[in-house]
Every structure is written in C-alpha cells, then in structure tokens.
C-alpha cells in the first residue's frame, strides 16, 4: 500500500517532467497521451487507496525523508492517507485525468501544447502534495506550488497585450496571472504566521502532534492561529476581499479554469479548514468559525449577485464557483466539515463539467464568450448542450442531481444551527444560482439564433472529448446518492468531522428541502421567460436598463477592482517612486555625498594655505597660538 501512495503522488510529476522534455519542441500528441495516462495511473492508485481505507479503516502514514531540520524544528516529507486526504486525492486525480484528456482535444492547435501538459501535470503534483502532506509545512509546499502552476497556466497565453479594463476586465493573461499570484501571497503571509504560532506553541508542525497539543493552549493563541490560517484559506479560496483574482484568472485556457479555478486549487482553502477541524471545532475559536460561516454566506450571495448580469460565459461560471466556495465555508464554519467536504467533491464534478462544456462552446465560437452573441446552439452542439444542462441542474440544486444533496445539507445545517439569517441568505442565493445558471444555459442554447448573423459557424467538439467528459456527467448526476455511504466512510475518522442534524431539523427536513427546490425552480422559470423564448417574446438587450445604478454596480463588480487599483496599486507605485527619487536619491544618498563633498571642499579651500611662503606660515602659526591660548584660558576659568 505504501508504494501506491508514492505512485499516486509521483505519477503526475513524472508526467510533468516527461512533457517538459518536449517543452520547447513541436506539438506532439503522445506527450498529452502519456501525461493523461500517468494521471490515470495516479487516479487508480488513489481509488485503490480509498477502497483499502474503506474496507480496512487503516490510515496509512509514510515518511519519505527529512526536509528542513534546524534548531528544534524538524520537517519531513511525510504523507498521510486518511479519509479526508483520500477524498481529495480521488476527486483531484479523477477531474485532472478527464481535464488532461479534454486538453488533448482543446489545445490541439496550440503551439505550446507540450508545455501546457507539463504545467498541468505539475499542478496536479503540487495539489497532491497539498492534500497528502502530514504537516503544515508540507501543505505549504503544495500551497505555493499550485500558486506557481496557476501563475504559469493563467498566463499561458502570455503574448497577449494589456488592454484597458473597459475592453477586457481582466486586462491580459499575464496581468491576471500576476494578480492571482500576488493576491495569494498576501494570504500566504497569514498562513505562514499561523504556522509560526503553531510551531512556537506546540513545538511541531505535524498535524497529529499539533492537534493533540491544542487543548493545552491559551484561548488567545488558538484564536490568532485560527484567524491566521483562515487568512491563508481566504486567498486560495478567493474569499472576499481577496476574491478578484479568481474571475480574472479566466484568462487562462479553459481546461485550466476547469481544473484549477473550479475543481481543485480554489478548494484548498476549504480543505485547510476541514483538515484543521480539531482547531476550528474548539470552543475557544467558535467566534472565528462563526465568522467563517458568515463570510462564506456573504460571499455566496455577493458572487451570485455579480453573476446575474455578467455576459461573459466563463466569468459567470467563475462567479458561481466563488459562490459555491462560500457555501462550503458556510458549512465548515458551522461545524459540518464532512458536508463541506462532500459539497467540495460534488461541486468539483459538476463545475468541471460546466467549465469543459463552456470550453466546447468557446472552441466552437472561436473564443467568443459573450452570451449575447450566442443563442440556439443546442441544435449544433447537442452533446455539449446536454452536459451543460446536467451540470447547471446540479449547480442549481435540483434533485436528484449531486448539487441538490450537498447544497441542501448545507442550507439545512444553517437552519439546524439556528442561524436563520444565514439560512435565509443561502436559500435566496440558491434561487439566484438557479437563475443565473439557467440564464446562461438559455442564452447559449435556446432563444433566437444571434450568432449566425455575426458570422459564427459553430461545430461540435471532437467525439473523444465528449466521451471523456461523460464520467463527469455521470458523477454530476449520481454523486448525491452516495451521501449516506460517504458519511459512514468519513465518520471513521473520529468525532471532529461528525455532524448530525437535531431531531427538530430532521422532522422539518422535507419542508426545508421543498423550500429550496421551490426557490430554485422559480429562478429557472424566471430565467426561461426572460431568456429562452423565441419570436416576439425573444430576449432583447435593454441598453437603457444597463445604465441603472444596480446594473452598473454589479457589472463593475461593486467597483472593487477599481478601488484596489485607485487606492492600493496606484498609491503603491507612487510612493515607490517618491521613495526612490525623493528619499533615496535626494536625502539618503545626497547626505553621503555631501559629507564626502564637505571633506573634499574643505580640503580644496584650505589648500590655499599651503603657499610655500614662510611669512604666511608664520601668520597662521600666530593665529593658531592665539586660539590655543584662548582655549586654555577658557578651560582654566571653567575648572
């Protein structure tokens, strides 16, 4: 079994190195095939590990070698395969495998095909380190590793020039890549501080040691550690106010968006909170956990609101990701860790499917993403249409698809915890989610044909690509049916992750579920009437409405990116410039030069004394003697 751990972990790494060997040569299909194959190997190993864990219940813990040893700190490369990590591994490798195969088709015209696979597999490797590591420092390796791979992949089409924010809200791929990296770094500082706090108070960074020592720590320490780690989680999972990078990251190729910015990397923050459940579940940090739940709910609503008016297909899906991450944090914050993890898995499947479907549309429309330029695509792209509808139903949360079970459980949790405001917001957001996901489906696949007039001749994606997507479609449908079985599996881990609804909630569960379904269906119907009809009821763009206050607020993302630019980026550049030209050159350096000049000038001036004329020298000698006498006289008087 131990070998399987290494196989699962290193297969993507080998794939990445292999692809990197051909990184600078012509596109070669076999590079993509081999990388995908190695990912499949990793997936199968993960699955075997999961099955083994399910049947035997034995957590596997391996230590590969030492990494950093200094002073009293000792950090190994160690990996732990427990219920939490194996869930993540299976989800990550499954989605990655499908995305890899998809990318063979999607990237087939790209010159940098081989390089793409190298980055993509390297990303999966980092993600696996992140989830498998048995200590916080190892997690941090993966944490930063996925950050770099994301930087490389978002900026994959680096040759595109910068545009203004009006032309393209993300400016350019390379700009978006830098934004993502830097914003994540801000959060990473929080994460590092959390690591430092834990180390100095528990003497270790190993999960088991740290978690065992938690009950002996001061409340203040626990709270600061919880806050600091959560700041780290906020960056990776794009929670407000560190959320703007996620929508901009849509500049990357679509398979990247599907893999990194929907299914895997952005869930790392949620994973961190779930992994640290012994910390977040403590009495002393209840306030922090509640804050997490509130922030999650807020983000769920906030992101959904922006998706209502967005016209860019990929950005809508990005907002929905943001919103669903909010749901996960709401669940985790309320203590329902396993529900959060389950939603994470279910979301990974249907969101990846949605993104890949979006990629098909984009491929067909020659990279056009404006929904207003599509319409009636269902006849030309039947397979994609079916996939995206399945994914949207799952996202909207209708039974019996995956999203319903997991999201309903989260909403139920909010009710169960008597946080009715959160419950209300989450229900409302569920309605909005249903509305915007179907707005997107209807605008893309139904209604009037708006694309032919613009000269687009869409065509369906390759057959093998559609076939590769099918497992995701199946999973988007059936995952929810295994919620009970998964619960039994994850409960093996111990009390920390267990969460049960109260009797009272249990009784009301059916009604609660019906409310959610009702709200969601209303959203879909509303979207249908607005966007799906043809003929005289067909959707028409209302320019006047787009000048309204709320519309402008939403389409400009509440002006947050603008505020960041005006009040952070620009002042920073300005202050830097002042520091350089005004302070460093004019004050610090000028002082040094002036000191030097003083010696030089005084030397130069006094040189005139050296005339070689004896009588001159005598004069100076007399002056000197007088000065000395005066000094002697004064000091004598003072003493």
């Amino acid at each position: 079994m131990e070998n399987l751990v290494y196989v699962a972990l290193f297969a993507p790494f080998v794939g990445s190195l292999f692809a990197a060997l051909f990184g600078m040569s012509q596109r070669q299909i076999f590079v993509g095939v081999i990388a995908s194959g190695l990912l499949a190997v990793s997936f199968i190993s993960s699955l075997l590990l999961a099955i083994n864990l399910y049947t035997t219940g034995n957590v596997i813990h391996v230590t590969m070698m030492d990494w950093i040893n200094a002073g009293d700190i000792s950090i190994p490369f160690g990996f732990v395969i427990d219920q939490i990590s194996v869930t993540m591994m299976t989800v990550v490798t499954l989605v990655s495998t499908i995305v890899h195969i998809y990318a063979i088709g999607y990237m087939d015209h790209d010159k940098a095909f081989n390089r793409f696979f190298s980055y993509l597999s390297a990303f999966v490797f980092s993600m696996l380190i992140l989830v498998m590591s048995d200590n916080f420092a190892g997690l941090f390796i993966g944490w930063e590793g996925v950050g770099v791979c994301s930087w490389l992949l978002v900026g994959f089409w680096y040759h595109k020039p910068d545009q203004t924010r009006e032309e393209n809200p993300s400016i350019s791929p390379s700009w978006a890549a830098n934004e993502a990296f830097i914003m994540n770094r801000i959060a990473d500082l929080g994460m590092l501080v959390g690591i430092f706090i834990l180390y100095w108070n528990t003497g270790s960074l190993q999960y088991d040691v740290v978690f065992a020592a938690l009950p002996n720590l001061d409340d203040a320490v626990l709270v600061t550690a919880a806050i600091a780690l959560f700041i780290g989680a906020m960056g990776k999972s794009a929670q407000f106010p560190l959320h703007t990078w996620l929508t901009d990251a849509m500049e990357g190729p679509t398979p990247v968006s599907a893999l990194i910015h929907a299914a895997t990397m952005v869930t790392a923050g949620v994973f961190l909170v779930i992994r640290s459940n012994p910390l977040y579940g403590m009495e002393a940090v209840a306030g922090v956990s509640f804050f997490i739940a509130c922030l999650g709910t807020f983000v769920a609503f906030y992101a959904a609101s922006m998706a209502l008016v967005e016209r860019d297909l990929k950005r809508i899906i990005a907002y929905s990701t943001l919103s669903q991450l909010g749901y996960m944090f709401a669940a985790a914050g309320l203590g329902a860790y396993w529900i959060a993890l389950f939603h994470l898995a279910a979301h990974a499947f249907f969101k990846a499917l949605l993104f890949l479907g979006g990629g098909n549309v984009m491929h067909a429309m020659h990279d056009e993403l404006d929904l207003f330029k599509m319409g009636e695509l269902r006849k030309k792209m039947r397979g994609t249409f079916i996939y995206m509808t399945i994914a949207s139903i799952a996202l909207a949360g209708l039974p019996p698809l995956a999203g319903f079970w997991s999201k309903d459980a989260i909403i139920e949790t909010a009710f169960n915890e008597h946080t009715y405001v959160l419950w209300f917001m989450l229900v409302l957001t569920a309605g909005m989610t249903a509305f915007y996901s179907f707005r997107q489906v209807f605008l893309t696949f139904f209604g009037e044909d708006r694309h032919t007039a613009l000269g687009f001749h869409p065509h369906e994606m390759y057959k093998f690509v559609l076939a590769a997507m099918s497992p995701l479609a199946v999973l988007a449908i059936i995952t929810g049916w295994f919620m009970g079985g998964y619960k039994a599996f994850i409960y093996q881990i111990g009390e920390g992750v267990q969460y049960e609804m109260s009797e009272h909630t249990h009784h009301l569960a059916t009604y609660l579920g019906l409310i959610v379904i009702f709200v969601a269906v209303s959203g879909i119907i509303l979207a249908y009437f607005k966007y799906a009809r043809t003929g005289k009821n067909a959707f028409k763009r209302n320019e006047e409405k787009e000048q309204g206050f709320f519309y402008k607020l939403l389409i400009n993302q509440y002006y947050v990116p603008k505020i960041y630019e005006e009040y952070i980026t620009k002042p920073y550049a300005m202050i830097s410039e002042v520091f350089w030209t005004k302070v460093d050159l004019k004050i610090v350096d000028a002082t040094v030069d002036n000191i030097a000049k003083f010696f030089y000038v005084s030397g130069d001036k006094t040189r005139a004394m050296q005339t070689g004329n004896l009588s001159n020298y005598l004069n100076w000698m007399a002056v000197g003697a007088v000065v000395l006498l005066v000094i002697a006289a004064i000091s004598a008087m003072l003493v």
Partner: protein
Amino acid sequence: MENMLSILVFFPAVAGLLGFVVEKESARMYGVTVAAIEFALSLWLWFSFDMSNAGMQFVEMIPLIPDFGITYYLGADGISLFIIIMTTLMTLIGMAGMSETRNVKNMIITLLFLEMTMVGVFVALDAIIFYMFWELSLVPMLYIIGAWGGPLRIYASIKFFLYTFAGSLIMLVGMLFVAYTYHDLTGVWSFAITDWYALVLPVDYQLWLFAAFFIGFAIKVPMFPFHTWIPYAHGQAPTIGSVILAAVLLKMGTYGFVRFSLPMFPDASVMAITPIAVLSLIMIIYTAMIAYAQKDMKQVIAYSSVSHMGIIMLGLFAMNAEGLSGSVFQMLSHGIVSGALFMLVGVIYDRRHTKLMSEFGGLAAVMPKYAVIFGIMLMAAVGLPLTMGFPGEFLVLLGFYKISPIMTILAGTSIILGAVYMLRLFKKSFFGPLNNEENMKLKDLNNRETWSLIPLVAIVIWLGVYPKPVLEPIDNSVKALLVFMDEKAITKEAKDMILVSKSNKGGA
C-alpha cells in the same frame, strides 16, 4: 592535509601571479582551470569536514608578531565552510560565464586575487589577518568597477571604496580597543578571535564596541541607511563584478556579525535587537518598494538584493537556532540566486546593450531557455518552497517570530513585495507581445551561458528539496554559538532572550 586552508587561500593568488606570464588568448582557459581546481579544493574541504564537530577545524596557527599577539591563524566551522564553497563556486561560474572581451587577462588575474581575499576573510581567525583580507578585497573590486564599468564607473568605484573603507576604519579602531582591553585584563597581547571570545566585557564596553563593528559591517551588508553605494556599484559594474559583489562581498558583512558581534558582545547584541530589526525592516520594505519603481532590470535586482539582505540581518538577531541557521542558509541562497540573476541580466545586456525593461517585452517567445532559467531563479528569489530561497527565509521568519510577532509580519511582507517587483519585471520583459523590432532576432542562451547557469539551477533545486547536507553542519555550529552566547551573557535579559535549542541542552 594540515595546510589545507592556506592552500585554499593562496592557491588562487599564486596562480594569479603566474597568470601574468600566460598567453592572452589562453588567459580565460587558465583562469577557469584555476578556479575549478580551487572549487575542487573547497569541495575536498567539505568532504574532509567532521560534521559532528561544531567547533573550528583545519586550524593553522603560525605566530607572526608574537610581541603583539598577531598570529597567522586560520580555521573553518560549519558557518564559514559553505560560504567558502559558495565563494569558490561563484568565482568559477562567474568566470566561466563571463562574456567580457576587453582585457580578459587582467580581469582573470584580478578575479583570482579577489578570490584569495574573499576566502581569506572567511577563514581568518585572527583579527589582523581578517582585517587585512577585508581591506584587500576592496582593491580588486575597485579595479573591476573602475576599469570595466559603465560611464559613471569612476564615481561608482570611488564611492564604493571610500564608503566601505571609512566603515572598516571605525571597525579597526574597535578591534584595537578589544586587543587593548584584552591586554589590560590578561597582560598579554592577542588578536586571536578565539581568545577574544573568552573576554567577558562590561555592558557599556560591549555597546561601544558593538557600534564600532556595526558600522564596518553595516556598510558592507549594506544596511539602510548605508546602502546607497550599492545601486551605483551594481549599476556601473560589469556583470562579473555584480555577481561577485552580490554573491560574496555582501556576505562578508553578515558573516562579520556572526563571527565577531554575536559571540563577543552577546549582551549588546540582545540590546541591539530592536534597533537592528527596525533597520532591517526598513531595508526589507523600503528597498522592495524602490525596486518596484526601477526602470532598469539590473537596478531591480540590485535593490532586491538589499531587501533580501534585510531578511538575513533579521535572522542573525533572532537569538535562536531556527532563525540564525536560516539566516546563514539564506546567505548562501542569496549568493547563488542573486548571482544567477545578475548573470541573467548580463545575458540580455550583452545582446541588446540596454537593461531598460521598456525596451523588452515578449522575450519568452524568442528566448525560451532564458525565460525558463530566469523564471526558476525568480521563483527562488521570491522564496518558493522546494527552491533554495525557501528554507532560509522560512526559518528566519519563524525564528524571529519568537522575538516579535508584529515585526515578523512586517518582515513577512517581503514575500508579497518581492513577488510584486519580481513579477512586474518578468511581465514587462518576458510577457506581452513582441513589439520591439530589435528583439525579434535575439538568440537564446548559447552553450557557454547555458552551462554556466545550469549548475546554479541544479543547486537551487537540490538544496531546496534536500537542504540537509548544508543545513546540518550550519545548524551544529549555530547551536554551539548560541550555547556559548548564553553562557557568556552577563545580563539577565540577554540570558532570557537567547534561546538554546532543546536538542543540545543535554548533550553539548
């Protein structure tokens, strides 16, 4: 081999003298061969190094002026060992990758002399010998900047020389005073640093002496506000000069703190934590911001180098083994990474004779190999885990967190600000459309450039993944140093502040 260190110090100098009679055409080959032998010798030093011994090894002692206690006294411990190896490595790589064509023979001879002085500084255990090498190292560098530099080279080289020279004179006064005090207390003259260690000085003496040494070292590091010579020096120096300056010469300053200030003045060092930390924070944040404002690639790297030295300084005063070991490791990492970055900037300068970022853009498309290596070094510079930049920075911040959480958070902004200026540099030069006509036909790295950079890439990754072979000996010596400081400290505050590792409380 009893005279191993002497051979290591004087081999390059003797070879440099012989270099005068070598043919001009083969001077470069000769220089690289000598540097390679020297590097091999330093590796041999590592292999024959006793890892379990935290003290001085390969000690050589020949009295020079017995009446004044001046001795030819050399030795190396875990802290200096790797700095020596880095010195010989960077000299070798710098020389092998050098693209200079003017007066190559003179350049080679100068570099070999410089190598002698640098190795000399790191192995000297007698203050006079140390001072001698310390000052001698200025001369070849003065010559390199002044003879091969850019248009402002005379100003830059004189500024470099006078500024650091003024600082070291104050340090010399401090040294003389220590020797004088030693004579007062024991009745014998000695300039041996190990003898000085035994000297327990009153706190006010310690403070004055700490200040005197501080000025000498701080200018060299360079600490804010003594850093303004460095943008000129880097701006005007030829690539090889910048590589050696950033990789090795700056480390002489931080090494001085470890070798002199910490063990000799433990109480003053503890008292100096806050002021030094404040200066270091200014270095980290202020110069990182200045780096962001730069238009010239090389100046970005130059200021970033100052910013990173701030992290090293902070770690030196963490007063625990985590921070101090991290700091020493970071010295090596900074040496290799900033050296490599300067070489990389040199590559583009050789092709375009400009370093302005506005001249570039889209280079990744025409020079992919160059972009990859630059990218790896950039990631190491911003401290990505599994590159050499991470363990040092992580340990320093971890260690200093024990002293002050707030200051650590401020220092930690280095990981953000570093990413900000580095990614901006990368975006401006390598990403975006390839608009400039002149860049379209640029040639990617040639063999010489590739093969001088590949070893650095390999080291950066190797020591990022498995830092143990280097970190362990450093850590041993650092722990011993802390135990020594703790025992020697006379004030309670200092004893409380200096944290001795649990792992050697029982043993050592």
